[in-house]
């Protein structure tokens, strides 16, 4: 017994020393960029969209090789990626033939009959659109041909292992768990494995309740297979992604919060189908909140409720829940990804191919290029054929144009409000599965809207202005504080210190401003948010009263997309102390850095086609990077 006790003590000592060992290498962490959300031809919908590129082609693309778009042109990434996961829809593997089989017991499912009886292109498209949320809902398990699912999954795993080059290029085995509430409320997440993966993916056919997915992941972890789930498109979740209730509508408690945080440490805040940081109606005092907004439920024209659909509000809700003793289920870090369905993410505004292949592969199909007269006629016919689908179409809250009445001369489709986003950034010691996965688990991650901006954030006490110029800044910051994704304990009622740092993408526009976004909960249990500019281009001072940089007069010529090089910085850096800190108030802080404005993809499309840009679409964009937050706790 004595020996056992000694061993236990030794074990504890080792356990304690491990974080310090890890810390020794922390300063050597470097920023790496990757893709964690990608569909190949193995996803049923991607196949329908014309994608014929399998996982090998997807990895070729990430490593810098050109691959072919369904419309025949070449897609080539500007700078190769450091890591990538292929995440095909698990639930669809092998299910399509069953839907088409008139003998099967799913034959009478409204979607299946719709698929078989569709006579026009419009009906067919509508039937396929409807398939996404419905599939699996009423299908008996004995109909599922698990042989096809297993074979396809085995191929996905083999392709990941085949293309993994530790130290150079990392692949992850993964898939998409494409769940929802009753109909279209998007609850999709990507499951990424640290190393080995099980024989079958857990899909919505087994359960649509994400809590069951997490329990499955817990059980795998007990068997030595670690994984995380990364939710995406909360913007299209109709408020369910970051709800104050569980999937079944029960109150959230500490067990739920712990289960969720154990399995979902990070969230995909931005991707081709819009950005979910916040909505202008939720953050009226944030002048940059109206960014790549897509506030419809996925694959529909139904409005998605704002409450519960955006990341910043989720952080606030998490503070509230914690104050109510329910734990905080929304203490997640941030990444972006593309969600491409053509095996290749479109990250650059000037080289954009959207995501669903033959359906949105040209500027005209995306609504960026004026239609010819015959095309306008065709579009009218299409609209008339689909009147039933469009009759309840609400006004697009961003463009002001409802789909049933678009800007004259342009198509207005769901993909008209999509964009060239984004990339996952991680701070990791080395380019390996273990190192990158662990960075995601500790939330030392950041998200960009496409360009390769890099960002660092440290919170602590005892930081000062001088550290910004200290060559040992990073080592000291790790030693005295916590990096992005971490928790810091408030000390003696003192306002916390932060070091914020962002650099531009050398292949894109320079930076305009560096910002801190803060949310906090007051003594009455009410939450607030505020955006502070903390460093401005050209060293201009931040106005004390408004916390805003002066306008740096960055301009972009929307006729040529040229922008001046005379304003904007290669890097912005600041030491910042919270001027509104009140002792006892828990808070979260994250960095946002904005580029100077550049042309949006829709403007590039119009210029190339020699067309007038669609007035309903934004002509320019301020690309940005978001850090994961640091949480201040008392």
């Amino acid at each position, binding site marked *: 017994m004595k020996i056992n006790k000694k061993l236990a003590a030794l074990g504890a000592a080792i356990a304690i020393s491990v974080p310090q060992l890890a810390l020794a290498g922390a300063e050597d962490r*470097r*920023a790496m960029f990757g893709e964690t959300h990608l569909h190949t031809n193995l996803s049923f919908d991607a196949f329908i969209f014309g994608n014929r590129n399998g996982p090998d082609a997807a990895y070729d693309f990430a490593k810098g090789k050109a691959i072919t778009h369904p*419309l*025949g042109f070449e897609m080539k990434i500007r*700078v190769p990626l450091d890591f990538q996961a292929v995440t095909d829809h698990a639930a669809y593997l*092998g299910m399509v*033939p069953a839907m*088409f*089989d*008139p*003998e*099967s017991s799913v034959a009478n499912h409204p979607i299946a009959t719709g698929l*078989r009886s*569709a*006579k026009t*292109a419009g009906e*067919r498209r509508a039937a396929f659109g409807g398939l996404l949320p419905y599939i699996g809902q009423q299908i008996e398990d004995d109909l599922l041909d698990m*042989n*096809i699912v297993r*074979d396809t999954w085995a191929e996905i795993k083999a392709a990941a292992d085949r293309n993994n080059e530790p130290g150079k290029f990392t692949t992850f085995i993964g898939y998409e768990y494409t769940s929802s509430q009753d109909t279209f409320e998007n609850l999709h997440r990507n499951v990424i494995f640290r190393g080995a993966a099980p024989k079958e993916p857990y899909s919505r056919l087994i359960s649509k309740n994400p809590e069951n997915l997490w329990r499955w992941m817990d059980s795998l972890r007990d068997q030595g297979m670690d994984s995380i789930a990364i939710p995406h498109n909360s913007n299209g979740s109709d408020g369910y992604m970051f709800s104050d209730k569980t999937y079944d509508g029960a109150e959230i408690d500490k067990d739920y919060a712990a289960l969720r945080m154990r399995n979902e440490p990070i969230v995909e805040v931005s991707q081709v189908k819009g950005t979910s940081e916040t909505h202008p109606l939720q953050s009226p005092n944030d002048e940059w909140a109206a960014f790549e907004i897509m506030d419809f439920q996925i694959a529909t024209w139904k409005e998605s409720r704002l409450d519960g659909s955006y990341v910043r509000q989720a952080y606030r809700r998490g503070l509230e829940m914690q104050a109510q003793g329910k734990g905080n289920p929304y203490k997640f870090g941030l990444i972006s990804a593309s969600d491409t369905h053509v095996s290749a993410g479109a990250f650059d505004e000037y080289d954009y191919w959207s995501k669903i292949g*033959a359906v949105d592969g*040209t500027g*005209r*199909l995306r609504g960026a290029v004026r239609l010819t007269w*015959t*095309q306008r006629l*065709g579009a009218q016919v299409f609209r008339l054929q689909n009147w039933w689908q469009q009759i309840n179409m609400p006004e697009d809250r961003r463009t002001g144009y409802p789909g049933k009445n678009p800007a004259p001369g342009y198509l207005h489709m769901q993909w008209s409000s999509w964009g060239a986003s984004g990339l996952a950034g991680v701070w990791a010691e080395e380019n390996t599965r273990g190192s990158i996965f662990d960075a995601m688990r500790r939330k030392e991650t950041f998200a960009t809207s496409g360009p390769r901006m*890099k960002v*660092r954030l440290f919170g602590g006490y005892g930081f000062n202005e001088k550290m*910004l*110029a*200290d*060559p*040992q*800044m*990073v080592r000291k910051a790790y030693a005295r504080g916590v990096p992005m994704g971490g928790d810091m304990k408030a000390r003696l009622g003192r306002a916390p210190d932060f070091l914020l*740092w962002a*650099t*531009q993408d*050398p*292949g894109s526009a*320079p930076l305009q401003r560096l910002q801190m976004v803060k949310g906090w909960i007051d003594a009455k249990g009410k939450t607030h948010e505020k955006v502070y500019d903390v460093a401005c281009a050209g060293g201009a001072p931040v106005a004390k009263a408004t916390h805003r940089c002066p306008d740096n007069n960055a301009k972009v010529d929307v006729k040529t997309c040229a922008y001046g090089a005379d304003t904007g910085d*290669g*890097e912005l850096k600041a030491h910042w102390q919270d001027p509104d800190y009140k002792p006892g108030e828990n808070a979260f802080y994250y960095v946002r850095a904005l580029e100077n404005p550049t042309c949006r993809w829709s403007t590039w499309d119009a210029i190339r086609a020699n067309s*007038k840009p669609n007035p309903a679409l934004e002509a320019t964009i301020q690309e940005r990077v978001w850090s994961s937050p640091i949480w201040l706790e008392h």
Partner: protein
Amino acid sequence: MQEGLRKLAQDRLIWFVILGVLLFAADRLMQSRDNEIIKIDLPLVEKLVAQWEGQTERRPNARELDALIEGHIREEILVREAARLGLDDDDIIIRRRLAQKVEFMMADETVSDLPDRAQLQRFFDENRAQYDSPETLSWRHVFVESEAQARQVQAALNAHESDWQNKGKPFMLNRQYARQSELELSRLMGTQFARALFQETAKDWRAPVQSAFGWHVVKIDARHAAQQAAFEPLIERVARDYQKMQRQQALAAAWAELRSRYQVELLPIEGAAE
């Protein structure tokens, strides 16, 4: 009025026209009946099965085969309906697909089978540059505040290099890199910086060098000459490239021939452009 109608009824031309319309309608009816027959034969079924096998790597069972055939029938009917409605006329995807098919045909027609070794060796010799690995640099740098500071730090470093990692400002990227090509370097630091480094010949600390991020003091530790590739280890890649080149050449030739058969007329533009 009635007089007029009677007169019209007596007009043979009118009867001729009415008869013509009836004949035309009857013909259309017959045609459309023809058009309503879908033939399923063995070669077609074999093709469907082969497609299925290509996607699933197993043979379909009886039920799946039924579904495949039913799916084909459905597709055929929808395609005919689409053609009847003229939906294929101005469909950009169909046009592209048709054009692409012809391109594939043109490219495939003239590509020979496996090239022989001598051909490959010749191709490799002619295209050696694309197989060689480019020149690379191993370098380190100190990131500083200004052009003036760059010169100061340069002088200090050339006198005492030992503590170089504690000079200058913190830098978001690494302070030291090994074996980077000009392309890799430009992606990391911007093209201006990459060009400057690759043109630098001195071996001591140099300044000022400007990047997308600011000013640097730079030292090139080693310059690794471009590596000439050897034929043998690359033979498979060379074969792939050779065939790709053949296809492209065939396509270009076929295209030139095709293009020469057509004349393009530019019509005058009426009115002002929008």
